């Protein structure tokens, strides 16, 4: 088991956002958490990457407890987080954004990782000296993913990577996720676009107001009556 979340409880002040959630991600899988806005999906990812501290339960990565560990140490362990809304550093150049992604990596390896990212995202290479704020939405999503790849993660968590993108760009983003997966990265994907997410996921969990209401393989859930009604538009 690569990532194991056990009976996780997270609060925002008095609000109980995640209520006893448990799930696993095995090495080499694409696992997706789907659910409506406010179901607690992003909160779970932020707790895994250490930005939020759980009130109860724990998060294990590679059989070691990581809940309570500082976020920068969790990155060093091999978890990269592509946040909701991309959150690239808009005032820094494309290249500097990538360097920030490699913050925990030995500096000798940074140039090589940069070249690998440029190979995957040629548009970023063209715009390497531009400030990231001048990129289009699609390019910014590429940068956010490229930046996360710079730390050579074994587990990549993506939070709503399709948000705000035109359908053709959504296809591209999912193609890239598939490629990364084929190259050996384990993926934990959070999406509101349930159809796309279920189409590439090995396994999926449905989250409703802080609790897991359903789980199964991507195909099982895509065919399930209740999921179709609630998330796939009938």
């Amino acid at each position, binding site marked *: 088991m690569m990532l194991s979340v056990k009976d996780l409880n997270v609060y925002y002040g008095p609000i109980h956002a995640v209520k006893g959630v448990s799930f696993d991600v095995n090495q080499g899988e694409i696992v997706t958490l789907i659910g409506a806005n406010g179901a607690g999906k992003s909160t779970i990812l932020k707790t895994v990457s250490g930005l939020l501290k759980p009130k109860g339960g724990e998060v294990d990565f590679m059989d070691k407890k990581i809940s309570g560990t500082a976020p920068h140490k969790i*990155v060093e362990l091999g978890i990269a987080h592509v946040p909701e809304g991309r959150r690239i*550093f808009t005032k820094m150049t494309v290249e500097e954004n990538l360097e920030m992604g490699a913050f925990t990596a030995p500096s000798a390896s940074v140039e090589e990782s940069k070249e690998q990212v440029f190979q995957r995202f040629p548009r970023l290479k063209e715009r390497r000296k531009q400030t990231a704020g001048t990129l289009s939405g699609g390019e910014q999503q590429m940068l956010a993913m490229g930046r996360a790849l710079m730390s050579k993660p074994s587990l990549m968590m993506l939070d709503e990577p399709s948000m705000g993108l035109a359908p053709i760009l959504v296809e591209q983003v999912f193609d890239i996720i598939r490629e990364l997966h084929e190259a050996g990265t384990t993926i934990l994907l959070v999406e509101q676009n349930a159809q796309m997410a279920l189409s590439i996921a090995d396994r999926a969990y449905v989250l409703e107001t802080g609790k897991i209401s359903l789980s199964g393989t991507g195909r099982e859930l895509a065919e399930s009556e209740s999921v179709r009604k609630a998330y796939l538009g009938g």
Partner: protein
Amino acid sequence: MIVLQQLINGLQLGSVYALIALGYSMVYGIILLLNFAHGDIIMVGGYIALLIISAGISPLVAVVASVAGCIVLACLIEKAAYTPLRSAPRISLLITAIGVSYFLENVAQLILGADPRVFPNTAVIPSVTYNVGGLNISLTTIVTLAVAVVSMAALTLLVQKTKMGKAMRAVSEDMGAAQMMGININRTITFTFAVGAALAGIGAILYCCRYPQVKPTTGYLLGLKAFVAAVLGGIGSIPGAMLGGLAIGVAEVVVTALGYSTWTDAVVFAILIVVLLVKPTGFMGASMNEKV
């Protein structure tokens, strides 16, 4: 000729303000704190240099010790007073900063007395004045301008080119995203305080060489003026702080030269009021619009 002479005087004073304003602006940029204790760090730096030189030790040692003392003090303040309030409302941080400021002033008064002490400025920079084409330029002016230019160039390089400098910019733009990159934000914030304090230490020596006395409240007005400079330049912006400092220095000297020397402080704060009314983001401050 008189204009040029006053301009040089203004740039000398202004570059000291700029060095101090940088500390305000950098700390604001990274944790949105107006660190009103920053001015008092200058006072402590002044006393450290004064006491060491008075003890007959080399002025060079005094300068190094003063800068080092400012750095250590700023890091201690950050750890003891500001870090525990990292997730508290910003107003709590601001009030704490004011409290730290009064604390430093009163401790200094308790230990060293309230009377001003004469700063041995000629021990640091000999009192020599050159006449260049009708302009009187003191060695203090030359050293001040040179040190300020070198410090600011070094700061720019640090922030633009080094890994730590880039981390500072990343944390100042989005602390959460910076954490997701694996940046240790506590270390980055402490480093920012240290850099600001080093510049303040340098500023302290240069200021005391121009106005050779130190008292417990030395940092009070000086700190406020540097704060005005930071706001004028656009708080959070490093080139803005440099420009704002120079502008305030020149404005003060011009007002004095016109014969209204008792009005200099009033003019500085009038500038603050006008900036806040007309262009609150200053010369180079980030616009409030965010790309969605």
